[in-house]
């Protein structure tokens, strides 16, 4: 991963969580809604998965359905990641439609009306924001790494998540907001952390100092 992680980006308030391992999965629900990461753009989906998300060959093999800007991708070697792209990753899904949405699958023609095709438009290279959505098994596969490196989330989404599991989080994690200790008990009702619509979130497993 060559690009600067969002956790190093000074434009957003930065919230860090240190928590017990069992609680990491609670943050996975944010990943299905989409989180932003700042990475190299202008590369192919295959290169992005490999070099920017750190996905190994086994993981890439498990990612059977890939949606770029809401369209199923068949050829990850030619589809390009643009600034502002939305990249959603899923394991193989059940049902005929699940099979239909697999990349390059036998049934891909059944959804040809919505398949992803490069338009030939110029694609800027360099660093840019990309929205990543992780579904199903991909949450556990790629989620911990993304959360550790830092992701940009909508602060109301984070507030809702913490409110839903308030007691569990109070007992099992410690949090800092811009290097100041954060009182998780005072988050409920505050939907705009420090006045920010978006917040940089870093989640790591470690000893909890509650």
């Amino acid at each position, binding site marked *: 991963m060559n690009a600067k992680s969002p956790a190093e980006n000074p434009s957003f308030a930065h919230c860090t969580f240190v928590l017990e391992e069992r609680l990491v*999965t*609670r943050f*996975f*629900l944010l990943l*299905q*809604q989409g989180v932003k990461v700042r990475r190299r753009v202008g590369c192919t989906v295959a290169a992005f998965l490999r070099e920017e998300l750190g996905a190994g060959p086994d993981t890439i093999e*498990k990612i*059977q*359905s890939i*949606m770029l800007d*809401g*369209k*199923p991708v068949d050829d990850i070697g030619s589809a390009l990641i643009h600034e502002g792209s939305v990249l*959603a990753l*899923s*394991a*193989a*899904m*059940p*049902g*005929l*439609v*699940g*099979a*239909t*949405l697999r990349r390059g699958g*036998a*049934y*891909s*023609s*059944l*959804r*040809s*009306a*919505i398949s992803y095709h490069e338009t030939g438009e110029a694609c800027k290279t360099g660093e840019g924001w990309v929205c990543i*959505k992780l*579904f*199903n*098994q991909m*949450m556990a596969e790629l989620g911990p790494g993304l959360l550790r490196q830092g992701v940009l989330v909508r602060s109301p989404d984070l507030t809702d998540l913490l409110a839903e*599991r308030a007691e569990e989080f109070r007992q099992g994690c410690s949090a800092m907001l811009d290097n100041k200790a954060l009182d998780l008990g005072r988050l409920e009702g505050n939907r705009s952390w420090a006045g920010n619509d978006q917040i940089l979130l870093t989640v790591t497993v470690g000893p909890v100092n509650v």
Partner: protein
Amino acid sequence: MDKILRIDVGAGGGPQSKAVPVGDYAGFGGRAMTSAIVSKEVPPLCHPLGAENKLVIAPGLLSGTAGAQSGRISVGGKSPLTGGIKEANSGGQASQVLAKLGYAAIVLEGKPANDDLYKIFINKDGVKITKDNSLKMLPNYDVVAKMKAEYGDAICCISIGPAGEMKMGAATVAFTDMEMRPTRHAGRGGLGAVMGSKNIKVIVLDSTGMPVRPPKDPAKFQDANKRFVDGLKKHPVTGQGLPAFGTNVLTNILNEVGGYPTYNFKQGRFDGASKISGETLAETEKSRGANPTHGCHRGCVIQCSGTYNDKDGHYLTKQPEYETVWAHGGNCGISDMDKIAMMDFLDDNYGIDTIEMGATIAVAMEAGLAKFGDADAAINFIHEVGKGSPLGRILGNGAAMTGKAFGVERVPVVKNQAMPAYDPRAVQGIGVTYATSPMGADHTAGYAVTANVLKVGGDVNALKPEGQVELSRNLQIATAAIDSTGMCLFIAFAVLDQPDTFQALLDMLNSFYGLSLTGDGVTDLGKKVLKMERDFNTRAGFTPQHDRLPEYFKTEKFAPHNVTFAVKDEDLDKVFNW
């Protein structure tokens, strides 16, 4: 499984049963059995609720054996909803138990002489039919509780709720699961109304003292079953995705590709999708002490079901399926999972098809009877159905009836049956199956086994425009065959990707019956079933014009991709050319 139990509900002095040899129907199971009996014995122009219609309940070819995933049961008849032939299948315990008792089918026939309601008890000693008017208008959970109190813990039940007794077009036939809850339903097409028209409230099965059905070649069967199970467990869908998240794992991905019908099929994305996704559902279930990984019948190794607890940790319903969550969720603009789970429970309890009911509520919302997103109004609509109020009678007869009653044009049905949770404009290939299936709009009609394994009709070039028609044809043939084995359709994923798992399935059938069935034989069976069904529908008055999607799917652009259904009518008419 060498006999058929025929019950004449119009016999003098009350229903009379007679076990007869399976005869000409030997070799048929599941959907093949129901469709064979219906197509041969039911006059296609008869009234679905009249004396000439029959309700056929048939276990699969491998039900009652030690074979994994063999517990699906088929229910067939002339559909009160579509007016055509219908097979709806279900999980639950009944298939295994009925097969162990030796019955290849139960057939309810004739017309009751009066309004008395009956229960039927079947065990190794025979059949006992008893009048029991105390069961009238009881919902399914109460019926099962009464049967448990009367017959003990070793039973399973096949029952109808009030919707079936009121002969509604969305009424289901319910089957109890391993915990003896009526959570599994032959849902589509209103077959619960046919059972209601026969005045049979519940069939209680007890296989105590009956052995597992023995294969002709036990060693080969055991080996094939082991290979089959290994294939299911190693596949990422049947071994990982379904056990962890259930079928509702599809919500996020369908929403992402813009194929998730929202607000009565107006758009392809729902803002609240992540609140009702399979991932969120599984996490909620775990946090409330429920189990997100559970089978619907003994012998299931996929374990795609589960239980859903309320906020206080008490059982509310089984883990709602993807189609249920969609129908009552995104399609109605509702993102409160507890309310959706409540609707799932009410549907099960009153005996209503969750897909038809959800689609109907969305049509009612479009008509202005409630606002999209109003979960309490949606719950109230289901109670109206359960009560049988004038409004409930309309809603309980499905989306098409509701659209007519309230003057709504945008009604997503084919042959009067509501479309399931995949928009045919985004995934056009499934639209071909919705349009042409003899069953009406049905996502499971073209579901199983790739052409690349079975090579139905040769290799398909999926890149050709006509590939969608060819694929739909092949999928429908393969699905009809799988439905006839009594195997859970979800085996299709492992079979689709792993030819050795498909071979293991063939080996199970061959070693059990002493056959030498090949992939071609499976194809022939599927074609035979479809031919019988199409023939019945033709004689019932169906024409190519019935094999069409509603007009607005061709003209109304579907966001976010702004696509319309583009498959030509003349191509739809080629689906059954083989």
